[in-house]
C-alpha cells in the first residue's frame, strides 16, 4: 500500500465542507468568548452567511469534472453536487427558521449551540453526499444523527422535547446497529469499504449462500436506513419526535435529514447493489429485492396518508405527511427507472420548498398560540391572509396539484413508474394515497379559510420567516410552472 502524500490531493473540491467546518469552529469559539449579553442570533446570521458562502463555493465547483480524493473517501460527482446543493439550500432555509425561533424552555442559553449543531449535522449530511466509502458514509450519517439527537432535545426544560430526543436516540441507536450489522456483512463479502470496489467484487458473486447473505445484508441496511427516511417499517418515531422537537429542528429532520437519508440509500443501492450477484438472466440482487422495496414503499404511503387523517396536531400531521412523501420517493427508488436520480432530486427539491414553507407557517402559528393543534389554524385567513394564502399554496403543492412543484415531482416519479416495465399496482397505490392526502391537507385549508377565528389578533412575521415563505412559494410555483429551470440545471451538471 503506497500512499500519495496528502498534499497531492485536490483538496479544493472540499471547499464547501471546509467552509462549513470553519464556520463551526468560528461559532464554537465565538460562542465561548462572546459576552453573555450579546444576542446569539448573530451567530445564526453568521451560519447563514457560511452556508451561503458554501453554496457559492459549490457553485464555483459545479463545472469541475468528477473528482475523488483519498481512495474515494471523498468524491465530488454530479450526484454529490446536486444533492449537496439541496442540502445546503435546505439547511440555509432551516437556519432562517432557526434565527426566527423564539428560544425558551431551557434553550435560551444554548442558542449558539443550537446554530452550530445544525451546521455539524449539515456537515455530516454533506459528507454523505460526497463519499465513495462506507466508513465516511457511516461517519457522516452518525454526525448528522448525533447532532440531530441533541437538537431535538435542546429545549431542556420541555418534557416533550426531552422525550422526543430520547425516542429519537433510542430508535436511532437501534437503526445504526442494524445498518452497521448489514454493512458488516457487505464488508465481509468483499473485504472492502470502497463502494466502487464493493460493487466490482459483488458483481462477481455467484455463490448461492453469499448471494443470500447479501440479500439479508441488503434488507438490514435498507431497514436500518429507513429510519432516516422515516419510511416503513422504521417510521413510527417520526410523529413523536417531530411533535416534541423545536419547530426548526422538526423542519430540519423532515427535510435535510430525509434528503440525506435518500442520498445514502441511493448511493448504496446504486453503487453497491445495482450489479450485485447477477443471476443467469443478468438481474442483480437489487432487482430481486424489488418486491420488498415495492411493498415497503406501498406500506409507507398507505400508513403515512391514512394515519395522517386522524391527527389533530399539525406537527404530527406533517410527520405523517413526511412519511407519505418518503413513500412516494421510495416508489421512484423501487422503479429504478432511467430518471431515478432526476425524479428523486426534483421531488426532494420540491418537497424541501413546500415543507419548509409550511413549517415556517407552523412555527409562526404555534409560537403565537402556544399549541400546535390543527384547530389553531382556524380563521388564519382572517388573521393573516398572506400567511393563509401562502400556506394554501404550499399545501396544494404538497397535495400534488398542477401548477406547483409538488405536481411535477409526482409526475416525474410517475413517468418513471410507467416507463419500461410498468408498475401498475404501485403507481395506483401512490395515486390513491395522494387522493387520501387531499383529506388532511384540505382539512388544514378548511380550518384556515372556512372556519371562524378564535381570536382576531394579527401576526407579525420575522424577517427570517418572510424569507423562507417567499423562497418556498416562489420556488414551488416557479418549479411547478417551469420545472425545466431546475431539471436542465441538473442535466448540465
Amino acid at each position, binding site marked *: 500500500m503506497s500512499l500519495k502524500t496528502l498534499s497531492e490531493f485536490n483538496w479544493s473540491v472540499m471547499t464547501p465542507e471546509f467552509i462549513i467546518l470553519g464556520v463551526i469552529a468560528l461559532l464554537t469559539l465565538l460562542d465561548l468568548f462572546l459576552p453573555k449579553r450579546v444576542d446569539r442570533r448573530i451567530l445564526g446570521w453568521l451560519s447563514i452567511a457560511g452556508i451561503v458562502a458554501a453554496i457559492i463555493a459549490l457553485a464555483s465547483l459545479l463545472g469541475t469534472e468528477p473528482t475523488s480524493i483519498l481512495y474515494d473517501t471523498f468524491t465530488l460527482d454530479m450526484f454529490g453536487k446536486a444533492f449537496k446543493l439541496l442540502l445546503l439550500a435546505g439547511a440555509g432555509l432551516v437556519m432562517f427558521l432557526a434565527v426566527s425561533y423564539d428560544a425558551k424552555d431551557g434553550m435560551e442559553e444554548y442558542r449558539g449551540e443550537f446554530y452550530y449543531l445544525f451546521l455539524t449535522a449539515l456537515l455530516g449530511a454533506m459528507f454523505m453526499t460526497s463519499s465513495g466509502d*462506507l*466508513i465516511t458514509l*457511516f*461517519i457522516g450519517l*452518525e454526525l448528522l*444523527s*448525533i447532532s440531530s*439527537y*441533541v437538537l431535538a*432535545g435542546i429545549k*431542556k*426544560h*420541555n*418534557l*416533550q422535547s*426531552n*422525550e*422526543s*430526543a*430520547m*425516542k429519537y*436516540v*433510542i430508535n*436511532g*441507536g*437501534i437503526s*445504526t*446497529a*442494524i445498518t*452497521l*450489522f448489514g454493512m*458488516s*456483512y457487505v*464488508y*465481509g*463479502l*468483499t*473485504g*472492502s*469499504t470502497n463502494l466502487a470496489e464493493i460493487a466490482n*467484487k459483488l458483481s462477481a458473486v455467484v455463490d448461492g449462500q453469499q448471494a443470500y447473505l447479501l440479500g439479508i445484508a441488503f434488507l438490514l441496511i435498507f431497514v436500518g436506513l429507513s429510519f432516516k427516511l422515516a419510511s416503513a417499517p422504521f417510521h413510527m418515531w417520526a*410523529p*413523536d419526535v417531530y*411533535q*416534541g422537537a423545536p419547530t426548526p429542528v422538526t423542519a430540519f429532520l423532515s427535510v435535510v435529514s430525509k434528503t440525506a437519508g435518500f442520498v445514502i440509500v441511493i448511493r448504496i443501492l446504486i453503487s453497491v447493489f445495482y450489479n450485485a450477484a447477477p443471476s443467469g438472466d443478468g438481474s442483480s440482487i437489487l432487482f430481486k429485492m424489488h418486491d420488498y422495496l415495492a411493498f415497503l414503499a406501498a406500506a409507507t404511503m398507505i400508513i403515512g396518508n391514512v*394515519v395522517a387523517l*386522524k*391527527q389533530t396536531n399539525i406537527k*404530527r400531521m406533517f410527520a405523517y405527511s413526511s412519511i407519505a412523501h418518503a413513500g412516494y420517493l421510495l416508489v421512484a427508488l423501487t422503479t429504478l427507472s432511467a430518471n431515478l436520480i432526476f425524479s428523486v432530486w426534483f421531488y426532494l427539491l420540491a418537497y424541501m420548498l413546500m415543507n419548509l414553507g409550511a413549517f415556517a407557517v407552523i412555527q409562526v402559528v404555534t409560537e403565537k398560540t402556544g399549541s400546535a393543534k390543527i384547530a389553531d389554524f382556524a380563521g388564519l385567513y382572517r388573521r393573516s391572509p398572506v400567511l393563509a394564502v401562502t400556506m394554501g399554496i404550499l399545501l396544494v403543492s404538497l397535495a400534488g396539484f398542477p401548477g406547483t412543484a409538488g405536481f411535477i415531482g409526482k409526475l416525474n416519479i410517475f413517468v418513471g413508474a410507467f416507463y419500461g416495465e410498468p408498475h401498475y399496482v404501485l403507481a395506483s397505490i401512490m395515486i390513491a394515497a395522494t387522493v387520501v392526502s387531499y383529506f388532511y391537507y384540505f382539512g388544514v385549508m378548511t380550518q384556515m379559510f372556512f372556519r371562524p377565528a378564535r381570536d382576531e389578533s394579527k401576526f407579525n412575521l420575522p424577517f427570517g420567516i418572510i424569507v423562507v415563505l417567499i423562497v418556498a412559494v416562489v420556488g414551488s410555483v416557479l418549479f411547478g410552472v417551469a420545472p425545466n429551470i431546475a431539471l436542465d440545471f441538473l442535466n448540465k451538471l
Partner: protein
Amino acid sequence: MSSVPASAFLALALILFCIGLYGALTKRNTVIVLISIELMLNAVNINLVTFSKYGMAPSITGQVFALFAISVAAAEAAVGLAILISLYRTKKTVNIDEMDTMKN
C-alpha cells in the same frame, strides 16, 4: 490456520446482536436500553473484526471500521445518557414506558 471457523464468530456476533436487540426492545430501564444498544454495536464489531481476518479479502479495514464504530457508539452512548439525564430532570423517571406524553 485457525481451527475456529469464521461462522462460529459470526454466530456469536449474531447471538449477541439478538440479545442486545431483545434488551433494547424490552427492558424497562432506559440505561439498560442504551447499554443493550451498545451490545448490538459490539456484535457488529465482532463481525467486522472477524471479516477483517477471515473475510473475502482480509484487510485491516475491518478493524479500522470497528474502531470508528466504537467511537461512534461511545459518542452515542454519551449523548443518549445526557438526554436521559435531561429527561430525568423534568420527568423524574428513567422508565422508558412512562415516556408517552406524545402519542395519537
